[in-house]
């Protein structure tokens, strides 16, 4: 965080480190060590892979498969009825729409906030800038769980309980994404901006036409991280919504959990796949970007 040297981000380091390390590592390691290490790696792979496989395979197993013993590792047939029973047991289409709305609008608003704020910290002369910066970064140390009670009261006073604005607006303040973008924008050569200023471009033009395009990769990374966080949000939507039609997917899963002691595992696992699948897909598509961004937050 305090380093002033413009170093390549963890994204490129991940890539660079890879080929470099592989060469030096393979040179002087006896075969038996490689075998032992590979065995350990495979064992740890199973720890993470098997539960995920268990979830996805369970979602397409028939009840006969789920409740059979010895357990069935491979479903005897592809049983997609579970998704229909989940859909019938609870208004999953509403959950899905609500999740999409709160996630997309919330992410867009937070990112606008983050970009404006990071730009101001990086390029606008403001007095007490340091204090304001610490004020924002310090909010990351405040346990969010402590703010639940008063935020609930505030949102209630505004008449926003069980509304989209009540679900979205308390979460649009940005510290982490702002910090990532600020780190990135600081590496932009101020002379480019000065040249634009001489040409008569105001702050807004300079931001939209120069800084945002130059920071685009980091903006994308931060957007993904923010988006994942919003989609996965649990406690706030749980508290602030009160009718089934306003619930989001993670909360909606509660509708499928045991009713009168009986759990329809097939439907529950199918519902879980609906809630988890999009994030898993997003992660597989953009894992380097997401991991790099999170590592950047930790390592700087």
């Amino acid at each position, binding site marked *: 965080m305090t380093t002033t040297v413009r170093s390549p981000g963890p994204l490129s380091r991940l890539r660079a480190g890879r080929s470099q390390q592989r060469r030096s590592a393979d040179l002087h390691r006896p075969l038996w060590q*490689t075998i032992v290490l590979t065995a*350990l790696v495979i064992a740890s792979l199973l720890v993470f892979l098997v539960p995920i496989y*268990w979830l996805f395979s369970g979602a397409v197993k028939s009840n006969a498969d789920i409740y059979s013993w010895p*357990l069935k590792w491979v479903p005897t047939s592809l049983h997609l009825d579970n998704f229909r029973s989940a859909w019938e047991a609870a208004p999953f289409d509403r959950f899905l729409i609500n999740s999409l709305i709160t996630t997309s609008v919330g992410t867009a608003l937070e990112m606008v906030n983050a970009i404006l704020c990071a730009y101001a910290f990086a390029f606008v002369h403001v007095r007490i800038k340091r204090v*304001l910066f610490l*004020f924002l970064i310090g909010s990351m140390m405040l346990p969010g769980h402590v703010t639940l009670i008063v935020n609930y009261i505030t949102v209630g006073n505004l008449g926003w309980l069980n509304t989209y604005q009540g679900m979205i607006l308390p979460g649009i303040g940005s510290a982490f994404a702002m910090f990532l973008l600020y780190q990135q924008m600081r590496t932009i050569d101020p002379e480019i901006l000065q040249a634009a200023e001489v040409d008569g471009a105001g702050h807004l033009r300079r931001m939209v036409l120069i800084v945002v395009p130059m920071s685009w990769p980091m903006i994308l990374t931060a957007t993904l991280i923010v988006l994942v966080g919003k*989609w*996965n949000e649990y406690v706030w939507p749980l508290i602030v919504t009160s009718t089934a039609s306003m619930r989001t997917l993670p909360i909606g899963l509660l509708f499928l959990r045991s009713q009168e002691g009986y759990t329809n595992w097939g439907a529950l*696992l199918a519902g879980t796949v609906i809630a988890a699948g999009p994030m898993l897909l997003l992660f597989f598509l953009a894992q380097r970007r997401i991991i790099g961004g999170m590592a950047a937050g930790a390592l700087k």
Partner: protein
Amino acid sequence: MLPNLAAILVFSYWPAIYTIVLSFMDWDLVAPMPEWAGLQNYVDLFDDPDFWTIMLNTLVFTTVTVVGSLVGGVLLGSLLATKVPFTGMVRTFAFAPHMLPGAAVGMLWLFMFDPSFGLSRFLFNLVGADSPQWTTTSDWSLAAVTVAYLWQRLGFVTVIYYTAILDLPGDVLEAASLDGAHGLTMLRHMVLPLLSPITFFLSVTGVIAAAQAFDLISILTNGGPGISSSTLSWMIYEEAFQKFDIGKASSAATVLLVLLLVLTFVQVRFGEKKVTYAS
């Protein structure tokens, strides 16, 4: 900048401060105004034996998950840094749970833990034992939440360590290995000290995250049976939004806030000294 500052002020700082004020009040969210109660909420809280059980649960859960993920993470991170086959796959699948909704991870583990049809029965049968009733008995409920939480957190810590290890000054490590250091000696005397800033960061943020763990508890056990898997964060929710005792919930929230702030301060104050910075 102003909209962001306003949002953070209204929805982060103000609630933290006003929660402290409410902790000296009595309110059920229905009465028009909170009533002044002085220190009574705190007296009630500290007199309540349940509160101390919950504090102990919080302490055990936080310690085990933070220490467990740090130890597991640095070992797994070093293993991945050896670049033997399949390490790329482990990196992907270890990190994946961190991307999933806590509610989904909770449901997944609820199924894993099912004593009749879950993988837990399979694993325990392998060693000739019956699966414990993970989520429905007080002896096991906190362990169930801890296992699920560790599973979700470990990959994140691992990948951060892994990235940091690749980032270590290669020349220093090479010099050490020419001097005959290797394997675990290398890890202990060279790598760990060089990683200490990361360990420091991960332990501060890890404590803050674990002390607020909520979704897994809510899905897996609802804090029960009884209060056997209740932590402070669960208690705040239960008192405020199920029993509508805002005063008691606020005083519990204030305890959590103060504990975390003090702990963060102590970690920063005394941790910094032990941290070795590479550059």
